[in-house]
């Protein structure tokens, strides 16, 4: 089976999506999925650095067990802003709305998503929601934590809860429309002959993510409406004074927010599969199992929310059920880690920056996943829940996992997106700095949790100081690591060397078209491969000699 991409003998056609108009107007009215992806990328990068600034200030404050640069109220507002921005305005849209938007139509061999105008609409809705959050911050912020637990958020907080909630409510519609668009695209626009089991795992992952977006987001939206109503009118079904149940809010909230974790991590898994198999020059080990695992995670991910309520006053029986189901959902995640490792076996491995990021992702996701086993256990969770152990655990999943994979994907597809190569050594350096900085920031937090330091503590007992300083030191390295890609990637947009269609020798359909792609993605219909990830390490080695 020939691995070479058939290049047309005709001269290269002119023009690509980036050259299709330079005015601001041409960008703001585009329905091209690739341009919308870039609109999202710019927007979420801004939010990433807003959320990151909040985190930096918090880590700075936590150097000292007593107040250092701010008061408790400011600190509480900062971690709320950090959570709200990072969860809803960075992580949820990160990979799906940027890489997903850019790549899904190309990976299925289509000209665009199924509903291009809806796609643009969803970006505007996202921006509108984001505006509300920024207004909230300007108007004084929120101090309830991103979880908005009642009755703190309804009766006792004096901050701008309603504005923030409205912002998240609006952004939710953006999520729903994006998910809807991908579902229809994958179902209806696949090129002839491109069956489900020929799709890259990235498409599987985004498809599964989209299902979660569509089914979970409306639950959050309505929960927030009930919350806002209760706050504005002073009563509601979460109101203990009337005999209502505050835990009901937690059930509703986590019915969305636990699957939301999978919204963040499933696309990351998709990216890792693409990158690892490409740089190992080997088909993904157990492709079908990997695809089923993605589907299983999406489905079972909806059945485990109660593990956030083990100590909240949920019945013991419910806790048993949710604890068991939480272990069940760990199985497909474990399969994925094992299969990525097995993909490396007998490969022909090179270590370009995307591969470094992807390997970093696997390692950090592994630790994040394994520490989840502690929190799924009733007896251990009753000790660790709401401590820094939990903070470390979910940062390993969301930052170590999703953000690492996001960077892996951005670097991997950067030549496709911009037509230029990023600077390789800078990128490798950044990958290593981020990996080290990340571990230094968050590993000490596991120990802090075991020592008994609760999360969301502004002041803490002095015996926790050493590990907090360590964590803050790591955070400064991490911040430097995150600044690097912004600098060198921006530089490479103008100065990076031009690349051809397929600099990596990768197999997805998106690599068959020009870089950057033409407006309608393909000049000639893409050739559909016999099977996905049709890499051959031996042939690769032979070619190198």
């Amino acid at each position: 089976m020939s691995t070479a991409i058939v290049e047309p003998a005709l001269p290269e056609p002119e023009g690509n999506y980036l050259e299709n108009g330079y005015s601001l107007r041409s960008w703001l009215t585009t329905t091209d999925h690739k341009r919308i992806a870039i609109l999202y990328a710019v927007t979420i990068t801004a939010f990433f650095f807003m959320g990151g600034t909040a985190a930096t200030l918090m880590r700075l404050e936590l150097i000292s067990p007593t107040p250092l640069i701010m008061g408790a109220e400011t600190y509480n507002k900062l971690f709320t802003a950090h959570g709200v921005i990072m969860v809803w305005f960075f992580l949820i849209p990160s990979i799906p709305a940027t890489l997903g938007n850019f790549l899904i139509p190309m990976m299925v061999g289509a000209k665009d998503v199924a509903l291009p105008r809806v796609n643009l609409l969803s970006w505007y809705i996202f921006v509108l929601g984001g505006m509300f959050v920024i207004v909230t911050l300007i108007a004084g912020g929120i101090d309830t934590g991103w979880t908005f637990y009642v009755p703190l958020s309804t009766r006792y907080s004096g901050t701008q809860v309603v504005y923030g909630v409205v912002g998240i409510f609006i952004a939710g519609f953006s999520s729903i429309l994006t998910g809807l668009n991908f579902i229809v695209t994958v179902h209806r626009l696949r090129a002839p002959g491109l069956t489900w089991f020929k799709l890259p795992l990235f498409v599987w992952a985004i498809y599964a993510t989209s299902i979660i977006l569509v089914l979970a987001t409306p639950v959050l939206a309505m929960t927030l409406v009930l919350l806002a109503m209760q706050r504005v009118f002073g009563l509601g079904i979460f109101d203990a004074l009337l005999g209502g149940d505050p835990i009901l809010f937690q059930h509703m909230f986590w019915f969305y927010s636990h699957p939301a974790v999978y919204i963040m991590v499933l696309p990351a898994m998709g990216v890792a599969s693409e990158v690892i198999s490409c740089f190992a020059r080997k088909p993904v080990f157990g492709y079908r199992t990997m695809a089923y695992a993605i589907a299983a995670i999406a489905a079972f991910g909806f059945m485990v929310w109660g593990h956030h309520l083990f100590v909240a006053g949920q019945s013991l029986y419910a806790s048993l059920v949710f604890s068991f189901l939480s272990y069940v959902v760990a199985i497909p995640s474990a399969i994925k880690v094992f299969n990525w490792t097995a993909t490396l076996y007998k490969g022909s491995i090179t270590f370009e920056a995307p591969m470094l990021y992807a390997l970093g992702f696997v390692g950090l996701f592994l630790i994040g996943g394994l520490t989840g086993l502690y929190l799924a256990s009733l007896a251990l969770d009753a000790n660790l829940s709401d401590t820094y152990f939990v903070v470390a655990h979910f940062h390993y999943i969301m930052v170590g996992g999703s953000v690492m994979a996001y960077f892996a994907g951005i670097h991997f597809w950067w030549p496709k997106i911009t037509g230029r190569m990023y600077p390789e050594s800078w990128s490798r350096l950044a990958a290593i700095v981020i990996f080290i900085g990340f571990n230094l920031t968050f590993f000490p937090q596991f120990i802090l949790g075991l020592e008994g330091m609760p999360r969301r503590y502004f002041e803490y007992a002095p015996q926790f100081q050493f590990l907090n300083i360590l964590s803050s030191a790591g955070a400064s390295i991490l911040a430097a690591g995150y600044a690097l890609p912004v600098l060198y990637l921006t530089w490479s947009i103008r100065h990076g060397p031009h690349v051809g269609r397929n600099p990596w020798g990768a197999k997805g359909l998106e690599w068959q078209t020009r870089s950057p792609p033409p407006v309608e993605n393909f000049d000639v219909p893409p050739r559909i491969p016999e099977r996905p990830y049709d890499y051959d390490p031996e042939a690769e080695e032979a070619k190198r000699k």
Partner: protein
Amino acid sequence: MALPNSAAPVSYPLVSLPVAATPYAEKVEGLFWAVTGVCTLVTLGIAVAMTYFCFRYRSGAEVDRTLPDLAAGKSRSRRIEATWIAVPFAFFLIFFAWGAKLYYVYDDPPDNALQIFVTAKQWMWKVEHADGRREINELHVPVDQPVKLVMTSQDVIHDFYVPAFREKRDILPGRYTVLWFEPTLAGVYPLRCDEFCGTGHSMMTGRVYVMSREAYSRWLASGSQAPSLARLGFDRFRELGCSGCHGPSSRIHAPSLAGVYGQMVPLSDGSFVRFDDGYIRDSILQPARQIAAGYSNDMPPFAGRVSEQDLLELTAYVRSLANTSPNVPQGNHLQ
């Protein structure tokens, strides 16, 4: 383990895990180290495998890269995958069962537990002992004695967390939650609020003093001679008119409260409910919600008419009736 005096500079070990001060905490430690052992092995295994593969199969290395042909490869990779589905699942089942059993067996406090009421509010802990002794941000308990905390919140959700006991429980408004422990190691242990409760969340800390029997008796004796909670509850019981219907000589058809605490009682809708602190509380505030079988809904609701303090006292009183008989004049057992 003593808490430092804030004035003197104290040096701390860089890392210090809390002691396990109860038998339950020791069992949790056991589970923790078992899970940690397995997870460490898995992490090392994956790390070693990945590093090895990355090195051995790096591009340009002269190694055998032939993969088995498609059919054989398929059945082999199926077997491999089946293994790494089955083995982790077995471990997960063990983790689940172990953690669940520990927690489940532990859930019911023993009958001889010393009952103490905890009321949380932004941002302090109020503790009331059965004998009426009150404390703020401190909790004194004797060693080797099961202690059962009945907890409620006056405002937002809080969480009673003592790392040395390896357990915590959220404290909710409008409801009682229970946490119990049997400390076997005397000492002073930090108590922290572990559910974000607003501005002063991180200041909502306290100390649990686990004292020897003698020290505890001395501490009890040193307190003011406040009337016991049950005694106060009996006064409240009369003031609020409860005794008019629930008293032994009452002609109004209301269920007697003697000897029922802790029992399962039938309700008018055919279900059963445990007659515990939560049920007493609900029945005072909203009697119509759960009517005892054979009785009608005649009792007025006391929601808004009684404070959390009144509720604590009334509950303590009804609880004190647990071992009395319906014919004895009420309050006598308190003398």
